C-alpha cells in the first residue's frame, strides 16, 4: 500500500527520492531514482529534524509542520507524519513544490499509518 503512495510522489517531475524515516534515522519505506545512500541520508536528516524541532520549541513550543532545505542542486523537504515518523523528499530545485505539498496533504493520513 505504501509503495503505491510513495509512487505518487516519485512520479512528480523532479522528485528523485521519497523516504519514510523514524526520528532516530531508521528507514521505514523508500523509493528513489537517484544514486545515494538512503540510510546515510536518513541519519543526517534525523539530525536536521532534531535541530529543527529544537528551534521550533524556542519559538513557543510549536510543533514542526515542515522543514525545507534548499541547495543549488537539490531541495529536501521533510514533514512529520506522526510522532517520531517523518517523510523526506528529495527533488531538483525546479520541481513543483506546490504539487508535492498537495500530494502530501492528500496522503498524509494514510502515510501516518506506517509502522
Amino acid at each position, binding site marked *: 500500500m505504501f509503495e503505491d503512495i510513495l509512487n505518487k510522489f516519485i512520479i512528480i517531475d523532479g522528485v528523485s527520492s521519497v523516504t519514510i524515516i523514524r526520528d532516530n534515522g531508521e528507514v521505514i519505506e523508500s523509493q528513489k531514482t537517484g544514486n545515494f545512500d538512503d540510510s546515510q541520508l536518513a541519519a543526517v536528516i534525523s539530525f536536521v529534524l532534531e535541530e529543527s524541532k529544537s528551534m521550533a520549541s524556542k519559538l513557543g513550543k510549536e510543533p514542526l509542520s515542515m*522543514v525545507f532545505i534548499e541547495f543549488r542542486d537539490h531541495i529536501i523537504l521533510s514533514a512529520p507524519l506522526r510522532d517520531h515518523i517523518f517523510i523526506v523528499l528529495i527533488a531538483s530545485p525546479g520541481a513543483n513544490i506546490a504539487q508535492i505539498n498537495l500530494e502530501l496533504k492528500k496522503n498524509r493520513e494514510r502515510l501516518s499509518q506506517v509502522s
Partner: protein
Amino acid sequence: MIKNLPEGISIGEMRASLQWILSHTARFAGLVLVTIQGSRGFILINMGKPLVYYFRHGQNILKGHTAYEYFLSQPFIQFELRKYTALEMTLALGLAASAEGTADQPIPENVTKKGKKDVSGPVDPPAFQDASPETSNPPAGEPGEEDKPSVYEMDSSEYSAFAKGTISYLGLSHNVTLSVEDEDDPALFPHVPLRTIGKLLDSKKTDVGDLILGQIINLPGVLAVTIFRRGLNVLSIGDIDPDNLVDVAEDLINSAKGLSSVMRTGPFIQVTLQIPAGNIIIAPYYDEYVCILTSPGINLGQIRKIIRELPGIETTEETWETF
C-alpha cells in the same frame, strides 16, 4: 554636539568598514554613531546617502570630507545604528547646521532645482551640509522643547504651523514636489511636501520604512529579521529574541551542512522551518546569516522569492558557501 543629537531608536551595534556601512544602509534613515579609539563621531544617513560626517578627538573636530577620509582609513569602525523618524532627522540636520554656524541653504546635491529627486549617478561624500540657523523651531534639547505638544498630539492647525516652520527651517521651497514613485517612500525626508510629512508624522509609520534591513522587513509577511555570525547576534529588527535563536540556528545550519556529505548538494541556499505560527528562514547574507520570521500566510514559493530578493545575494557558485 553629539550628545544633543536626537537619541533615535538603537537597532544594533557592530564593527565594520565605512564601505560596509554605506553599502548596507540603502534604506536606512538615521544616525550612525561612530566610536574610534575612545573618540566619537557620527554619520547622518538618509536612504543610503550620507548627509553629514563628523568626528571629534579631544579638541580636534573633523567634518565633511575630512571626517569621511578618516573613517575610510579605518579598517573597522565600531558603530551603533539609531534610526530616526523624519522629525528626528530634521532636528539632527538642523543641529549639525547650527553647530557649523553658516547660512548656506541645505539643498542637497541630489535634488535638482525643480525639487525632483535625482537618483542618477553616485553621490560623492558630501561636505558638512548646512541649514539656515534662522528658525522658529529650536533644535532638540533647547529650553521650551518639553512644553510643546508632541507632533502626534497636534491638531491640524498646530501641525500645519509646525510643518510650515519645518519647511522654512530646512530652507526648502514650499513648492518642493516629488515624483509619484518617491511619494511612497517614507524616508525621503526632508525633500517631501507638507502633505507627505503630515502622513508620515500622523501615521507614525516612519519607524518601519527606514530600517537598515528594510528591504527584508518590508517584504510581505516578514515579521522579524535578525542577522548573526558565529553565535553572535549582529542586528535584529522586529519582535524577536535573537539571543534565544542564534545558537540553535547555527546548530541547524551545521546539521544541514551534513547533507553534502551523503549527496552532491551544491552550495547551500536556505533552510525554512514551518510551524503553525509562521516560518523561520535562515540563509546566508553577505558574510553572515540572516534569520527571517514570517507570518504563516506565506508559502514556500514566496519564501524562495524572499531569499532571491535578499540584497547582496546572488545564487552563483562563487558567492555561496560550498559545503
